[in-house]
């Protein structure tokens, strides 16, 4: 059904004799030029659409696939290729905190109308325990075998019964190397430089409590998932005393603030920080800080009571195809964990070292855990930290 409508739409848009294939090629070329600047991936969208078509053959995948995810967290070309080839139009609703997303699913008693929800690693156990997501049918996801071994059968979801890795990443330090001339290697340097004259008052931290408390625990190589009240209060005191007086903002996307000169050093996600090098390759330095940091990952899951379960499975399967995964990785800047993705990334991709971790980095990264971390207390203390920053 929707295939037909899309065909008609294209005929109206384009002159006679144009086929979908031609249209997709043009789109791929147009997209490719724009994509090259940061993504460096100019895979022919038509070949992706063919793959999607092969997946959709013989199956009725419905008209719409609703995805609940972070904003700007998917390659539009990949989504179009899926819709064009497999059928269902994709609608994405966005959330700005995982907790809010889970709350919404919980209030709705399941799907809330979504067919796929993107869940952070630390929350996977929670959504499974609360029965907010359903078991996956592995017979509909044959591409699951493409996932690298280390990303299958993760501790929080043994045998991938409920979730499949979307992509993973880490946090690091991004700073203006014209203003901060000393080399930064670890979190201790971060604390020291933040308090220096060059950076004080122009420091940006991420706007979520695990990343901010992490600063204290990572620096000392201690368990940053602790729920111990005494340790958390001590960390709060350290942050308020040593770091908060120098903080300008709590911002999840610090690139704009760095470019505009409002920040000179920031804590950030490596995928979103990578964008700065497309605009200014010289003046900024990225650091994977020692001795410890977080590895976070996001996972596809199908909410309980989802309407279009078949399309959800087809989509997850599609995303696990190495070519699709490479296009996705090139766009969002995070490794999807699919075998062969790294090899398929073109050489001219900007700052490949921010997509693919250099040797040794993954070994010092630790997963976040929510269970046992005393989130209620942490939120209170984080508010205390932010209130202290507001008073400065």
């Amino acid at each position, binding site marked *: 059904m929707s295939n037909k409508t899309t065909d008609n739409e294209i005929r109206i848009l384009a002159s006679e004799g144009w086929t979908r294939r031609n249209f997709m090629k043009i789109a791929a070329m147009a997209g490719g030029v724009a994509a090259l600047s940061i993504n460096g991936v100019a895979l022919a969208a038509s070949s992706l659409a063919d793959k999607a078509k092969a997946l959709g053959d013989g199956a009725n995948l419905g008209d719409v696939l609703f995805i609940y995810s972070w904003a700007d967290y998917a390659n539009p070309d990949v989504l179009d290729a899926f819709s064009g080839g497999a059928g269902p139009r994709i609608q994405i609703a966005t959330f700005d905190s995982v*907790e809010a997303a889970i709350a919404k699913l919980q209030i709705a008693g399941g799907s809330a109308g979504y067919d796929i929800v993107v869940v952070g690693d630390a929350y996977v156990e929670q959504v499974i325990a609360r029965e907010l997501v359903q078991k996956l049918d592995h017979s509909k996801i044959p591409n699951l075998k493409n996932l690298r071994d280390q990303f299958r059968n993760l501790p929080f979801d043994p045998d991938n019964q409920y979730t499949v890795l979307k992509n993973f990443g880490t946090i690091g330090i991004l700073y203006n190397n014209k203003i901060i001339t000393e080399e930064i290697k670890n979190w201790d340097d971060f604390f020291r430089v933040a308090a220096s004259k060059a950076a004080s008052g122009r420091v940006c931290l991420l706007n979520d409590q695990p990343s901010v408390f992490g600063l204290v625990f990572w620096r000392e190589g201690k368990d940053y998932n602790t729920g111990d009240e005494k340790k958390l209060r001590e960390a709060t005191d350290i942050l308020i005393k040593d770091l908060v007086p120098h903080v300008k903002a*709590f911002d999840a996307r610090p690139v*704009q603030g760095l470019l*505009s000169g*409002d920040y000179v050093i920031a804590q950030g996600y490596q995928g979103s920080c990578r964008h700065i090098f497309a605009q200014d390759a010289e003046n900024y330095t990225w650091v994977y800080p020692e001795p410890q940091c977080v590895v976070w990952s996001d996972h596809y899951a199908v909410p309980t009571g989802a309407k279009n379960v078949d399309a959800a499975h087809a989509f997850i399967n599609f995303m696990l195809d190495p070519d699709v995964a490479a296009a996705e990785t090139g766009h969002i800047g995070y490794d999807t964990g699919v075998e062969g993705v790294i090899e398929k990334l073109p050489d001219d991709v900007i700052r490949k070292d921010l997509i693919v971790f250099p040797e040794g980095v993954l070994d010092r990264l630790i997963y976040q855990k929510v269970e046992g971390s005393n989130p*209620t207390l942490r*939120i209170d203390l984080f508010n205390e930290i*932010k209130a202290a*920053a507001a008073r400065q």
Partner: protein
Amino acid sequence: MSIFLGAGTPARARRRWIDAGLVWGLVSLPFIVYLVFFAAPVTLIAVQSLTPYVAGQHGGVADGARLTLENYTAVFSPTFRSVFAASLANAFAGTLLCLLIGYPVAYFINTRVPDRLKPWCLVLIIIPFWTSYLLRMQGWRILLGANGEISSILQALRIVEPGEGILFTQSAVLVGLVYNFLPMMILPIYVSIERLSHDHREASRDLYARPWQTFLTITLPLTYPGIMAGVTMVFIMMTGDYVTPELMGGAKGMMVGTLIYSQFLQGENWPLASAMALALVFALVVLVLAMTGIGALLRDMPKVIRRATR
């Protein structure tokens, strides 16, 4: 005659009753809808605020939950108090600025702009609000950023240090708040000045009142309803706004709304968040009543002074 009347009365009376019922129904229906959709959520919040926190509970009341006031004692933590004080300070300053800018603007459009241009002036005030809120805020962020145009001018004038921006300061928060809520101040004041008969001011002039006397004793008191409508609306909305302060103030933009949001959505502590929300509502009611009282006093001040000095 009486026979005719007697024959007509029961039918006519019935019809009148039906009409009255219909009118009543039509008039009260929206009110009932409003009551249900306004009162029901507030009641839920109120009930929620009196139940203990249960991990993982979103809305509703846990089975066998007892009633408790513990959330209200938790509300008045030092963090809440300091953030609440900051929110009120922001809202007061923002409302005052809106009034100081909004009144002259409304007055100017009413008294100095030719009639046929007046609607265009009002449209000009509203036009920016046809673009997305986030785009407008983004624009301000660029202008006020350390490398932005406004900051460059201020740097050149040595008002701020070289390399420093206005963005993520208290001033930026006020710029954002005033920019966003100014029309809410201008429009009601404009309407109240518009309603003010020109004759009053003319009479005052004919009686040899100087312009400032006319303004203080005639115009200002008579436009008091518009001022109060604007002040109340702007003040309440500024106190509750937390997006503008966060976007413009960075770390300085912590508002009471941020706290409530974090407890609802990140802490998953709905009872505490509900208690915070209601505490905010009560505080606002008290403050607005106080402001109305002070406003009325100020309105009557010229009269009182005149009597005293007579």
